[in-house]
């Protein structure tokens, strides 16, 4: 298994550990699902049967808060980190892309996005502490980083420290909700994804549960068709969340791939990738288009460097250059005619994708399918809005102080 984004920074031991991490993650999910034999449609790794690639993409703005609140409320809430480090890191940035907003006295200086999996960073931190610290420092724009800020309670360079200890120390500082390190909670830097559901395990679980050729008889046309996400997600036992941008399209696409009789596997390198940015929506105060190179893509490959012509970036920073004299907050989105006031407005321009390897159709014909028995009625609150509204109340309470 190659490193996400086609990176080459782990070394032999680290790369072997990353491969094991992915394999173990898949095995754990299969165990949890009670699968004692291989999944009928999902392969543990791509092989000669899955020669084709297909990408599923979605915008980076989390839609559940937008649906549960208003768009303006959601944008404010999505940028908010509760004071005192209570709550969870980027709790609502749940679309497999997370960001931080860097502000100064004038306004928004830049917005930084990452799709890097914490699972990968755990391995990197375990096997190459110097590289880990160098990268974190570069994300923070600092010459160096205090190792204790990244490896809490552990000297990563001690000859007695083991990879397991370094990984645990890294996770204890950078991936925790309790007193998280400023190098990943957004105060000083954002290093990798830390939101609870933006993980390799969540992704694997979703793919293994959703890839099932479920059909239903359409209530109006009477035709047999694949389940929609609203019909399928209640049957998935929590493996996907309704109302997101990401999970519903992933679910419907995976059902359809199984229905077409295709094998499915994660592409190698496995990762969640920033595929494109709608930079053309942004204008300067003089109504000039924003140059595309104000977005800096990192931690991946250009379209010309990949075999399928798809870019695979894991990090993008949007920042007007110093000589422009502009801040992000000076820019306007022509689609709304509104100035950029929140990171979520830029996240809305970021398109994220998961690339899968698939076989030709009918390689694994699903056979005769019986219509699925649907959950009775759509769950009253499939979007789990009350939780989001509580967070909005907390935000308002803090804003009033």
């Amino acid at each position, binding site marked *: 298994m190659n490193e996400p984004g086609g990176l080459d920074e782990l070394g032999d031991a680290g790369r072997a550990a990353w491969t094991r991490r992915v394999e173990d993650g898949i095995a754990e999910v299969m165990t949890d699902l009670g699968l004692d034999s291989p999944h009928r449609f999902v392969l543990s790794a791509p092989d000669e049967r899955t020669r084709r690639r297909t990408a599923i993409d979605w915008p980076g703005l989390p839609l559940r808060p937008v649906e549960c609140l*208003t768009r303006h409320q959601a944008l404010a809430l999505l940028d908010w980190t509760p004071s005192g480090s209570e709550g969870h890191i980027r709790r609502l940035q749940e679309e497999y892309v997370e960001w931080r907003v860097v502000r100064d006295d004038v306004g928004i200086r830049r917005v930084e996005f990452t799709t890097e999996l914490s699972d990968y960073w755990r391995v990197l931190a375990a096997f190459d502490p110097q590289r880990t610290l160098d990268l974190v420092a570069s994300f923070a724009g600092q010459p160096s980083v205090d190792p204790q800020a990244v490896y809490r309670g552990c000297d990563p360079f001690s000859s007695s420290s083991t990879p397991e200890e370094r990984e645990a120390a890294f996770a204890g500082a950078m991936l925790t909700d309790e007193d998280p390190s400023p190098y990943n909670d957004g105060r000083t830097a954002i290093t990798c994804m830390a939101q609870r559901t933006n993980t390799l395990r969540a992704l694997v679980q979703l793919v293994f549960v959703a890839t099932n050729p479920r059909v239903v008889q359409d209530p109006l*046309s009477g*035709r047999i068709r694949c389940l929609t996400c609203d019909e399928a997600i209640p049957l998935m036992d929590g493996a996907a969340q309704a109302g997101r941008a990401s999970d519903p399209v992933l679910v419907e696409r995976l059902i359809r791939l199984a229905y*077409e009789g295709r094998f499915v596997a994660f592409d190698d390198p496995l990762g969640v990738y920033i595929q494109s940015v709608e930079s053309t929506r942004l*204008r300067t105060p003089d109504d000039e288009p924003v140059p595309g190179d104000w977005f800096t893509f990192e931690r991946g490959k250009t379209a010309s460097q990949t075999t399928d012509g798809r870019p695979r970036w894991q990090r993008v920073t949007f920042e007007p250059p110093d000589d422009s004299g502009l801040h992000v907050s000076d820019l306007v989105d022509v689609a709304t005619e509104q100035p950029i006031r929140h990171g979520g407005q830029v996240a809305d321009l970021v398109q994220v994708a998961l690339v899968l390897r698939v076989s030709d159709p009918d390689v694994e014909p699903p056979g005769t399918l019986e219509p699925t028995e649907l959950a009775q009625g759509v769950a009253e609150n499939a979007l789990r809005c009350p939780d989001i509204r509580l967070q909005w109340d907390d935000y308002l309470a803090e804003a009033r102080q």
Partner: protein
Amino acid sequence: MSKDERDDSTVSTGLLQRGIAFEQGRRPAPCYRLLLLNAANGATPAAVHDGVLAIDEMLQRLAVGEVRELAGQPKDKATASAELFAGLEHLIAFGRRLFDVDVHDPVLIDASRPDYLAYLPADGPFPALRWEQDRAVNTGEADIALQFTAERQAAVNCAAVEVWKLLTDEALPLEPVASFDGFARHDGRGWLEFHDGVSNMHTSQRRAALEAPADPEWMAGGTYMAFLRLTVDLAVWRTLSRAEQELLVGRDKLSGAALVGTRREESGAAIPVAAPRSGEEPDDRTLADFIDPPQTTDPLVETSHVHRANQVRASPAAAAALRMFRQGYEFLEDLVGRPRLGLNFVSFQRDLAVVHHVLHLPGWLGDVNFGGPTQAGPGDPQQIRLVSVAAGGFYAVPPVGAPFPGAEIFARE
């Protein structure tokens, strides 16, 4: 229509106004006209409100054959009028301009503007879909849009003229600023002679694609309309081979079947491979694939128009699928010299963000004018500039309500 009557009619259509043919078994009426109105300078909100109310009431009477200046006509003549206007539907929509405080003094609206209800940028509405050359001003933006659909061309045209008569006779503070006509082809094809509008969503999923959320509150249950009058360069299109055309569209030209892949000639030229023709009684999957072809895994077919316009091919319940309900109408303006013709692209969706995403995103329609690869390889069809925007605008289509849709948002003096 009274409020009670409106309430009775909402069982299957929710609060959506008439004129959107999304119900089971319903085809869009074949005749179309869009009439755009601006409020007169200095008009008060109350006067504009009353003007729209008068138009709405007049058009409801017209739909049952009551022509203002023909009141009292003999019964047989009244029957003829009723027949002419049978099936006439009108829809009232509010443009960005209505909310523009720089244009209207006094301010007309006392309600939030929906976030994505924005003017189309003057320097080009979308990155790969540009304004027509020599276009001086965008005539597609206005305060109010009235969409007319009917079975007869005369009905939609007469309805527009009846509005003009009413405005003139009653000295209402609204003035027509543009009007656009259109027609639908019964064969399901467009000017490119390909099947158009074939790919659309299951009837049971359409309301989810249409109904706006309550943000702002006054739009709850309404919808949003995108109107783009697109000119098509038919002369350029006809220089392409059938294979090139099919690769750009993503369908077989004759059967309408979706392309499933490509093969290469010895010369390296890409040859489209369509799904096999369905038999007399296609199975469910074959039929579904024809209506809404599955996402292909062929890189060249993935760049075709039908796949770029609907990349993820999921239901509207998956918001990131960016589904919109299209109800377009062709138009023909002139045949002298180069044909001047095209498509009134009309789509309805729960959120105009959908249209912006589709027309800005690279890989969707943000980096090509119509279809095909951005950088054609050897043997691939080349990019052409096929489509330009002659006029366009975004409109909020409020939910049905009394005394007319959206009446409550006009400012009170």
